[in-house]
């Protein structure tokens, strides 16, 4: 099969789900990169992440079933930060550290594809990463508190704030300001 935009062979088969009807695209590497790159960021190579992601998924799922299964995967969301998988797929950016756990099934083959390995062999932080469950919980509680504030559920927000403070104290955080005042216009930007 040839690329839709030139005569080179189409090596990337992309199913676009974000704009209404699913749309099939068949592109060569160059046009796939061009199509998928959302940002001109010079370091993160977002385009090629999305490209190798798309290719990875196509390989895993087989061409016929791609649309339904992709839709299902795309709808999965992270309970901690709330990002949906399709948001990661289109931006190339994850939402929080816990995404590596929630989306592991999809990320592992992608990571293998990018790095050729799946296990860290480099530096370890000298401080224990212990209590990471508590830190993950903090991300979630802060999000819930901010939502409660936005929706003017102040009683609930205040309970959440107390819970956040308890956890912060238990992991030795020295943060002072977790006010639940309505956000100022600057913060709401």
């Amino acid at each position, binding site marked *: 099969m040839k690329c839709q935009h030139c005569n080179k062979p189409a090596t990337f088969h992309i199913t676009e789900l974000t704009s209404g009807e699913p749309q099939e695209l068949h592109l060569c590497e160059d046009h796939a990169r061009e199509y998928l790159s959302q940002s001109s960021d010079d370091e993160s190579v977002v385009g090629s992440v999305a490209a190798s992601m798309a290719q990875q998924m196509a390989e895993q799922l087989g061409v016929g079933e791609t649309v339904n299964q992709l839709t299902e995967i795309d709808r999965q969301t992270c309970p901690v930060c709330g990002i949906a998988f399709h948001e990661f797929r289109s931006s190339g950016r994850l939402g929080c550290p816990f995404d590596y756990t929630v989306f592991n099934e999809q990320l592992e083959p992608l990571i293998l594809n*990018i790095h050729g*390995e799946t296990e860290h062999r480099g530096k370890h932080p000298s401080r224990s990463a212990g209590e990471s469950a508590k830190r993950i919980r903090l991300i979630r509680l802060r999000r819930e508190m*901010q939502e409660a504030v936005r929706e003017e559920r102040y009683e609930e927000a205040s309970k959440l704030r107390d819970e956040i403070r308890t956890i912060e104290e238990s992991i030795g955080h020295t943060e002072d300001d977790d006010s639940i005042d309505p956000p100022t216009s600057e913060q709401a930007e």
Partner: protein
Amino acid sequence: MNINDLLNSTGEWLRGDGPVSDIVISSRIRLARNLADYPFVSRAEPRDRLKIVDMVRELLAETPSFSDTMFCDISRLDAVDRNLLVERHLISHELAESEGPRLALINGDELFSLMVNEEDHIRLQVMKSGFDLHGVWDLANKLDDEIESKLVYAFDENYGYLTACPTNVGTGLRISVMLHLPALAITREIERVFRGLQRINLTVRGMFGEGSQALGDFYQISNQQTLGRTEANLIEQLSDLVVVIVDYEKKARQMLLDDDANTFFDRISRAYGILKTARTINSEETLHLLSGIRLGVNLGLIEDLGIASVNELFLRIQPAHLQKMAGTELDPADRDIERAKFLRSQLNPNDE
């Protein structure tokens, strides 16, 4: 210290000394890190981003390594100042152009900088002139340890340091070596060299200009893999390759001299002549000609100019630098006039 003080020097990476500095411009290492208890930047609420900025500012202000450091609130800088930092490679385009609370810490010698709320919460970079990846890594590693003693990073036993983009996960380490390869460009060998590099998972891109165009024959070589190898191993892999490319460039330089030295000298003399006399000149042409001058200086064909001075010209002919020196904003046509004026004044030191 403030941003205007930067104009008094060329910064560490263009100093023009260090090992193999005729071909290797600079060695750079970047570490990507995130805090364990906040969402990644693109998902963080403005108030979270503000907290992260305040926390990093407060914690690092008391750290001795950061005592000679300028803390720049990027959202308060005007466009020229932001671009000045980009042109000096102290911050990225992404940090300069994004929105919301974000911070850059800039070391007085421009040896290192730290960006807060770029793609990741923390991006630390260390740069040195010439080919010295071990020196760069030692400093980066030490600074990383110091920061880590104050903040808890998102780390997973299996995947290592967790980053917003899976391309950086693991070590979060990007090693970049910037090379000046004019002879490989003239002899058209460069494509072949780079095709070989891509096969082994290293990326190459031009330093000036957009995309893959390599204005001024400056190329940056970086690792793509960040997971599954130790930092030392990744550095060694890239270093081995740099040695090979440097050798190719040396051979190509020798070939140019052996082949038709007169045509080659002529080319460089003419480049020098244009830069010394032009009345208006755009950056593309300037970078192209300066590349020839730099090669001429390294081969001893131009004797009245040092490498440090040529490196400085590469930096100062860029738009934000010209505008800072002129003290006013300039449109592109006026910049071309200002650039030519600046080059004439630098390259004809005896006429006033």
